[in-house]
Structures are given as structure tokens and as C-alpha cells.
């Protein structure tokens, strides 16, 4: 099926060296069966001068617009238009000034309702401004005019406005007005026509913020569904950038509220949102994104260049069994100091160990000073060593760069050591860690950012800023080559499953099809002569919104957090059900206390082919579980069954009481002890032949989840449960909870 995708970027894709350009390029090239139209906003004039990258043939057309300059079309509003503008802008600003967008401390019912009302107000004012810009033009001039300033001043002085906004002085108002005008420049674009964004089947915004704004308007004007991908949350980036600048509190408060409202509206209007990791996901949930819309799609790395090293064809023989490798950009956030201190302890336990720091120079001004500081510390901590009295000595810590004779490529950097160490205190998505995993190296990393989510159970994780813990973990692995090998193999398997380009592209392919399958065809279908085809489009019901949704308030404490920790599932006793029932990705809370916190299998480990329960950190990677950062039981050895292709029921029950293998959670969620493996009886097979077909008998309790919006796409589903009780030979357990809607 051919899908026409309007790819929206800001300061990104077709321009050379833009943000996320590589990802967009891979996505467009990987999905050659679809058609892409690129709508790009350029961020600076220099970026425009630098030109575009080579575009593959599936890119139909590229439309660009500058964000760095306002287009003054010379339109001056008349009295009626000006009133329309001031009303809309006033509404927008009142919604912005009317309190925090993303929920203050009190989230009582009335507070949530009023927040919702404010969000609605913001959205309708935004669309009104967009309509004004489409009808009349001249929005850029109007947003900087004196009447806009008056509206802004009035909104700031209104009782009930943000406390910080009330202190705004005239320069602050000017700054805010200029910033809002810049942020709303996409409203004045001429992309919202039937032959532009209207011709796309869906809009895919490659980032939040300004890139998502055209998608928002295309959805409003033309009904094009919107998909938002955020590898870094725009709102968070705004906060960090704003705190670096020295603006008045009133400016920062107003702009933060504005961007918060905008993010909320983008998340509300988006059909699906794909955060890049669970950290971004939590921010999005916090900003009001509906959980049902979120699909985490991890970024993908090109695995081919690590294949030789990862498969052991190259480099493993030259690897020094006593060498630790650190690869990355040398900057203070990587905490090399702590690594050097840890290395001192490692050498106390294991003399003869070497540390190779393979650094790429960072652009930051203080990076060079930091590197010099690290070198000095290394020279101070470790004297040069030599083989004998006649040999020239060398420092056990070496600072190297990629491209030299010893380390010609990045893969060689990982290949040259037995163990890869990551000592960061701040980290987003740890690309270096994924590279190490693809190289099949055992890793020891600090628990920051998305590290735990990435590593799963295939490496050791220690708390940040804890050199002793880092040292202990490294020593444990240095002394156990077999374990290193096992972990490395498991890490490579996990990375190949989760963090490859193919995985990323396949995920987006599926998401595109999912969105298109849920959105009605709006264009008239014509035959060869250009005549409209009657009944060319099947009549279908499109229900806007979700009518089975229960209201979910993110700020409330979740159920699992009330009371003592509980075990998600029964300890495995009967595993007679097939692994094919693995559609339950949510372990059920509230059944039994846990024997050990580390036995919780998170959703990630369910997806992994082979989660090695080596470290305690791995199984903790589920987003919903109270984390217990402990490293102590890492020495517990893994059962031998770990590398069997798929742990069968027998293997699991013999070895898995401590470490439940993959299918346990769903097996145990069917709590009837001797539940038959039961292929579906004849009458049942037909109604459930849809995408969500389940090979188990359908109990009465299934009716409720099956009435979700998804089930509308399967004709005849509703008939299933009514037939079921009479036909089923098996007893119906009441507690079967198969969340059919969870499609990810």
C-alpha cells in the first residue's frame, strides 16, 4: 500500500548537517515503497546557504520556509480584522497566563478540569489565529504591533495570571511578543492547501515544537492525521535553553507556559506519538500525552560496520584481555575523573590492567581543558610502567583517538578491549553503549539516562558517581571471561533486535499503516476519465475521539505505588500455555508479594530474545516499576538455559524459579492451573481471524476489552463472545486479561 507522507522538519532533514538528518534520511530511504513530501523549516540563513543533501527518488517534492525571518507581506489590518486578531490573541495569552500548563501541585478534579478548559481555550485561539493568517495574512506584523503589546500587557495584569507574569516590565513584554511571533511563524505559511499538506495521507513531524505546528494546522484545516516523533522532548530542551539565557523571570515563566500549552495541544491532536526512549515518554506523559497514543520507537544504529567485530571475525584476537575501553566525547558530563579513580581501585585488585580512553574531541570550549585535566590526573595516579629495567615505560592509561594506526575505525576501538566502560553522570540515549553492544562487548555502565532501558539485562549497571561500585563491577567481569562472553553475546543479540536501523524503519512502517488504516479517505476517488467513482471508498464509521477511554490522570499515584511492592505474577507452576499467547505485555499487579524485586520482567525484556538475568538492573528496565539500584547480586550466575533458543516450559520450571524466563508473565496471568493448550474450536476460528486472533478460548470477560476502538476494524468480532459460552469445551477462567488494544 502506498502511503503519501508529509515529513515535517525544522532545521533538519534536507539541509546539510541538520538535526536528526541521518535518521530522516534512513527513514526515507528505507521506506522506498511510500512517497514522501518534505516540508522543511530552516533555522538560520547559513543553513539555507549550505544546501541540501542528496534526496532519494521517493521524495516527491520539497517545500521550505525560513523560520529565521518574518515575511512582511505589507498587510495592515482594518478595524474589524484587528478586533478579530486582538480577541484571538487575547484568548491565547489569557490561556498562557492562566497558570501552569502541565499541572501544578494540586491536581484535584476541579484543577484538572480547569486545566483542560485552559488547554481548549489555547487550542481554539491558536486555530483562530491560523485562520486569520490564512484568510488575511499579515500575522507577523500584527503580532509585533502595539495592539498585540496592549493585549499582552492586559493578559499579564489580569487577576489570576501567573505570579511571575505580573512583574513583567515593558522590555519583558517586548521580548515575549517577539518570541511568540517567532514561534507562530509557521501559522503564516501557505502549506495548508489541498495541493500541499492536504495531499498527504499523514503528516510526520520529525520533532516537537515548530516542526509539529504545521502538522497541527494541517490536521485542523484538512483533517490529515499527525504523527509526532520526538527523540528529545522539545519542551525540556526549551527549559534547558531558557535557563542558560539570562532572561527576566516573567519572560521565562510566560514562554515556558506558552511552550507547555503548545506541547499539550500537539500531543492532544497527534494521532500517535513516538518517543525515542522511556525518558522522553515520561515527559510526554507529563505534558498530557495520552498513554494509548505513545509508541516508543528506539533510534536505530547501522549495525553492519560492527558486524565483523561483533561476530568475532575481526579484532577479538587482538583484544587485550586486561584492557578496559572507554569510547566517547571527552566532556565533563562523562565523568572521566570518576572512571580514573575507579581504575585505580581496579589496578589494586588486578595489576596489569590497562585503560584505553578513546576520545573524540568535543566542540565545547571547556572540553580541551577537561581533557588536559584528565591527562594530568592520570599521570598523577598512575606512574609509567615498564616490562623490565631495560624497557621504556608507558602509562597504563592511554588517551587515543580514532583514525590512528592502532584504532583505524570506531569498531576497532570497541574491539581492542575486553570490557567497555561508560561512566557518564548525564546521558540521553547512550549511542556509545549501543555500539558496544553491537560489537558484542560486555559493558559496565552507570545508571543514567536511558542506559538501563538500553542495556536490559545484558551488562552491569552501577550508580553514577560511585567509583568503588564501578571498580567492583569491572573486576568481577575481568576475572570471569566466560561471563564476559555470555554478556557480550546477549548484548549483541539484544542490540540487533532492538536498536538497528531496520527495526526503526519497520516500526515506522507499521505505524504509518496503522494510522492510515484508522483515518478515513477524504479525497474523492476518480476513475481514468477523471469522473468520481461512486462507492469507490467503502462507507465507514469514523468516530472522532475515544469513546471507551477512561479518564487517566497522570499526576495521580498509580495503583502499584500504593502499599507494599507486589509480585506481578504467580511463581511459575503451570506453563502449559503456548508462547504464542504473549500478547500480555503488562504484568498484572496486585497478586502476591515479590520474593525479590529483580524478578520483575519489564516489557523490554519480554521483547528481547534472550534477557540474561545477569545483573539486577536489567529486569528493572520496565518503565513502571520502582527501581532498586543495586549491584550486589550481579555475581549471581545465570542458568545455563539462557542461551537455549527458546526456554521451553521444562527448562523454565527447572531453572526459572529464581529467574523467570520470558513467557512466564503471560503464562501465569492465566491462572487456571491446568488450562488446556486448547486450539480454538471450529466456530471460534472464523470470528477471530482478524489481526488480533487469539488461539485460546474466549471467556466472557473478554467482551469488555474487545469493544475497544481497535475491534471495530474486525468485522464480526462482536459476535464472538456471544457465541463463545455455549461452544467452549474448556472452563473459562475469569482472570484472563488480554489487553487487545496494546498493539505495540
Amino acid at each position, binding site marked *: 500500500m502506498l502511503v503519501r507522507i508529509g515529513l515535517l522538519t525544522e532545521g533538519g532533514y534536507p539541509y546539510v548537517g541538520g538535526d536528526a538528518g541521518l535518521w530522516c534520511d534512513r527513514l526515507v530511504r528505507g521506506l522506498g515503497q511510500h512517497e514522501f513530501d518534505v516540508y522543511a523549516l530552516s533555522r538560520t540563513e547559513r543553513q539555507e546557504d549550505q544546501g541540501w543533501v542528496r534526496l532519494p527518488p521517493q521524495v516527491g517534492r520539497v517545500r521550505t520556509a525560513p523560520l529565521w525571518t518574518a515575511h512582511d507581506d505589507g498587510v495592515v489590518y482594518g478595524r474589524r480584522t484587528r478586533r478579530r486578531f486582538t480577541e484571538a490573541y487575547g484568548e491565547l495569552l489569557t490561556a498562557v497566563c492562566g497558570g501552569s500548563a502541565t499541572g*501544578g501541585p*494540586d491536581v484535584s478534579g476541579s484543577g484538572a478540569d480547569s486545566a483542560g478548559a485552559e488547554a481548549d481555550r489555547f487550542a481554539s485561539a491558536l486555530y483562530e489565529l491560523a485562520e486569520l493568517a490564512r484568510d488575511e495574512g499579515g500575522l507577523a506584523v500584527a503580532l509585533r504591533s502595539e495592539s498585540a503589546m496592549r493585549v499582552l500587557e492586559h493578559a499579564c495584569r489580569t487577576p489570576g495570571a501567573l505570579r511571575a507574569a505580573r512583574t513583567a516590565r*515593558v522590555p519583558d513584554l517586548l521580548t515575549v*511578543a*517577539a518570541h511568540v511571533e517567532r514561534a507562530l511563524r509557521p501559522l503564516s505559511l501557505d502549506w495548508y492547501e489541498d495541493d500541499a499538506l492536504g495531499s498527504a495521507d499523514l503528516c510526520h513531524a520529525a520533532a516537537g515544537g515548530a516542526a509539529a505546528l504545521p502538522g497541527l494546522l494541517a490536521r485542523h484545516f484538512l483533517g490529515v492525521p499527525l504523527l509526532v516523533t520526538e527523540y528529545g522532548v522539545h519542551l525540556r530542551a526549551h527549559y534547558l535553553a531558557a535557563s542558560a539565557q539570562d532572561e527576566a523571570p516573567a519572560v521565562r515563566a510566560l514562554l515556558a507556559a506558552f511552550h507547555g500549552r503548545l506541547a499539550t495541544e500537539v500531543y492532544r491532536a497527534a494521532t500517535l506519538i513516538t518517543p525515542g526512549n522511556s525518558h522522553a515518554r515520561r515527559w510526554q506523559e507529563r505534558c498530557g500525552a495520552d498513554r494509548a497514543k505513545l509508541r516508543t520507537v528506539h533510534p536505530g544504529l547501522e549495525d553492519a560496520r560492527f558486524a565483523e567485530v561483533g561476530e568475532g571475525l575481526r579484532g577479538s584476537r587482538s583484544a587485550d584481555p586486561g584492557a578496559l575501553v572507554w569510547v566517547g566525547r571527552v566532556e565533563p558530563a562523562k565523568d572521566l575523573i570518576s572512571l580514573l579513580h575507579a581504575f585505580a581501585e581496579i589496578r589494586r585488585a588486578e595489576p596489569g590492567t590497562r585503560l584505553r580512553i578513546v576520545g573524540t574531541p568535543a566542540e565545547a570550549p571547556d572540553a580541551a581543558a577537561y581533557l588536559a585535566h584528565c591527562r594530568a590526573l592520570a599521570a598523577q595516579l598512575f606512574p609509567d610502567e615498564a616490562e623490565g629495567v631495560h624497557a621504556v615505560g608507558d602509562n597504563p592509561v592511554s588517551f587515543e583517538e580514532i583514525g590512528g594506526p592502532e584504532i583505524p575505525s570506531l569498531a576497532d576501538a570497541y574491539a581492542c578491549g575486553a570490557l567497555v566502560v561508560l561512566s557518564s553522570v548525564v546521558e540521553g540515549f547512550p549511542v556509545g553503549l549501543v555500539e558496544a553492544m553491537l560489537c558484542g562487548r560486555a559493558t559496565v555502565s552507570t545508571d543514567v*539516562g536511558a542506559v538501563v532501558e538500553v542495556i536490559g539485562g545484558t551488562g552491569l549497571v552501577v550508580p553514577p*558517581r560511585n567509583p568503588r561500585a564501578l571498580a567492583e563491577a569491572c573486576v568481577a567481569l575481568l576475572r570471569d571471561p566466560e561471563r564476559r562472553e555470555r554478556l557480550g553475546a546477549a548484548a549483541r543479540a539484544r542490540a540487533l533486535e532492538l536498536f538497528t536501523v531496520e527495526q526503526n524503519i519497520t516500526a515506522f512502517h507499521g505505524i504509518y499503516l496503522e494510522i492510515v488504516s484508522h483515518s478515513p479517505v477524504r479525497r474523492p476517488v476518480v476513475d481514468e476519465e477523471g469522473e468520481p467513482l461512486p462507492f469507490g471508498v467503502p462507507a465507514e464509521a469514523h468516530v472522532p475521539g475515544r469513546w471507551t477511554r477512561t479518564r487517566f490522570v497522570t499526576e495521580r499515584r498509580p495503583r502499584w505505588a500504593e502499599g507494599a511492592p507486589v509480585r506481578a505474577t504467580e511463581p511459575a507452576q503451570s506453563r502449559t500455555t503456548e508462547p504464542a499467547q504473549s500478547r500480555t505485555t503488562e504484568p498484572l499487579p496486585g497478586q502476591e508479594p515479590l520474593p525479590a524485586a529483580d524478578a520483575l520482567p519489564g516489557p523490554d525484556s519480554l521483547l528481547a530474545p534472550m534477557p540474561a538475568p545477569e545483573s539486577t538492573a536489567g529486569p528493572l528496565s520496565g518503565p513502571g516499576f520502582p527501581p532498586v539500584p543495586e549491584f550486589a547480586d550481579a555475581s549471581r550466575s545465570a542458568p545455563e538455559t539462557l542461551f537455549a533458543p527458546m526456554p521451553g516450559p521444562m527448562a523454565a520450571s527447572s531453572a526459572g524459579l529464581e529467574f523467570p524466563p520470558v513467557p512466564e508473565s503471560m503464562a501465569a496471568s492465566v491462572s487456571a492451573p491446568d488450562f488446556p493448550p486448547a486450539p480454538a474450536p471450529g466456530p471460534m476460528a472464523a470470528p477471530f481471524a482478524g489481526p488480533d486472533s487469539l488461539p485460546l478460548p474466549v471467556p466472557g470477560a473478554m467482551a469488555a476489552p474487545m469493544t475497544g476502538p481497535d475491534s471495530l476494524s474486525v468485522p464480526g468480532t462482536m459476535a464472538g463472545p456471544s457465541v463463545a459460552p455455549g461452544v467452549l469445551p474448556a472452563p473459562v477462567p475469569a482472570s484472563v486479561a488480554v489487553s487487545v488494544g496494546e498493539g505495540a
Partner: protein
Amino acid sequence: MTIDSTGPGAPHGLDDPGETDRPAGRRGVDPVKALLHRHRDLCERAVDPLEIAAGLEAHGVTDRTAARLRHRDVFSLAEEMYARTARDAEAVPSAETPGSPSPRGSRAAASWTALALVPGALGAAVVAGLRLTDGQPRLAVAVSGVLAVAVGLYLALRSGPLSSRHRTTGTARAWTCWLLAYALAGDGLLDAARDGGPHGSWPLATAPVLALLLAPAPAAWCAHLFAARARRRLSASRGLEEFAASVRPLLIGAFGLYLAALFGLLALCGTVLDQPPGYAGAGTLGALLLLARLLTARGFTRVPGRVLAGAGAVEALALVTILAARLPGCSSLAGPVDTLAAAAGPGALPALACGAGALVLLVQAARTLTRASAHAPPDEAS
């Protein structure tokens, strides 16, 4: 949000049975307090809890850390920290005075001051050349002088406080040139035309035009003064009305200063060149040009363009009516201009046209240049 004093640090805390078993005093009663102290700056600066959350994460605080502090996640930890930070919202940041200008700014000021003097210097040289030469060379001096002065004017207006980020339209430039040309030759031509001429060349009014060419320098200084003072008022005022009220006298003052300088220049040029200085015509034209430039520099191009065109058109029309009155049956056309010139001299016409225009622009400037939006700092294209 009120903080429960019995459970410091745990407004969202879990009812952990292990709480009582913990050895007392190991980590202090209030684990969040240390964190608050460490990130004091962040918390005091933050405008909402999410900013603290973003800052904490940038410092490596994760959900695991928050869990150790008995919070569900970083967001709830940030909310507690936000609520517990004493933040005096009324602390008015010290009104930053644009104090001593930076060396770069003073160098720029020197450069535009020098450039503003260029047209005057060129004009003086041309006038001297015209006085000293005769015949063919004189024509060459005149032509090259006009070109040089045009280039000088372009240079003087390209930078400094009179420069405009907004594109001036070609028509406005053409009308400005026409007005200057009329100031140079218009009065003489009008006189000659009324007498049935022109017969050969007619006298040129070089003194007023030289004064007008010297005027960019005081104009730039006055505009700079106005802009700098207005910026200072801007950072000090709390409301738009207050700002407008404080800037209006400033505008009038700067304008008056410029007028005084212009009349001084006119008197000087008149004395040196021994010509009638033409206070009315040249003075009003200078005022008109300054106001038009001030408005254009701040993006208000529409009204100045129209007013310049109107004044120029009136002057052109006067000449046309005088010449057209020689056609048979059209003698009554010359009536109004003739009457005016007979009553108050030929200089009354440009004075009237430019004076009316300047008055309109003065009213317009008093309305628009006192707006805060007219003094917005230029948008930096990051």
C-alpha cells in the same frame, strides 16, 4: 501547595513500613534538604516545577535518585523542591542601566558620525568648486558634485541611528530627491516662470541646500540621543502608558534640538555664502526629512512615503500651473500660486507644503514613536 510538616520531604511519600526501622540520623531527617541546598540556584530561578525537573535531570538526577528520596519520579521531586523554595516574586531585578557604552559601540558611533559628515563635506567642496570654476569645467563639477553628494547621502543614511532595516521604497527616495532639487532650484525657477521665463539660467539657492547637506550630522546625533534615552526609559518603565508618557517629551526635545541646529546651520551658510538662508522653506524641509527618516527607521514607512509624495506633488503642481497658464484660456490657473508668491515671496510655497507635511509627520511620530513596539530590539537571526 502546603507541605505537611509531620512528614518533611515526603508529601508524596509512600507509607513504607521500613521507615521506622531505619537507623535514625543516618541520612538526616530530610533527604531533600541537601538536594535543595545543592540546587539552590536552580530552584530559586525556576518558574515552574518542570524547569527544576529538567535542570535536575541535566545534573544527573534520575528516577532512581528520586526513589531514594521517597518520590515516585523526578517530577514529583521537582514539585516538592519548587514548593519548598522561598521565592520572592516581587524581587525586581535591578533595572539594568545601559551604562558606559562598550568600546565596540563607541567605535561604531565614531564611524557613523564621520559618515554623517560626508555629505556636508562633499556639498561644501562642490559649492567651492562651483564658485571657483566657470564654463565647461563648471558643468563637469556640477554633474560630478551631484553624483558625489548622492553617494555621500547614501553612505550617511546606511549606518547609524538613521539607518533603516526596512526597505525604503524607490518612490520615497525619488520624492526626496525632487524636494531637495526644488530647494536648490525651485524658487528661482518659479520666479523666472512668473516673469515669463526662464530666459537662460536662473539663480540657484546653494546656501539652504548646503545647510541641508550638513544637517545629517545633527540629525544622526539627535536620533541617537532619542533612541538611547528611549531605551533607558523602556527598561525602567512598568507599563505601556507610562512609557508613552515619558517618551513624548523626549521626542519633542530631540526634534527641537535638531531644529535649532538646522537653523544655526542655515544662518551660518547664509552668512558664509552671502545668500538669503531661506529659513522657512529649508527649515520645514529639514524637519520633514528628519521625521520621515525617524519613522522609516522604525518600520513606519507608509505615512512618510505618502507625505513626502504629497509635498513634492504640491511643489511640482505649482510649477506646472504657472507654466500651463501660458496656454490660451488657462490664465486663471496661475492665480493661487501667483497670489501666494506675490504676497509672501517664492519661498512661501515650499514652506507651506513642507510645513504641512512636517506637521502631519510630527503628529504621527508623537503617536507611533512613543509606542513600546517601536523600540523593540532588533530581532537577532540566531
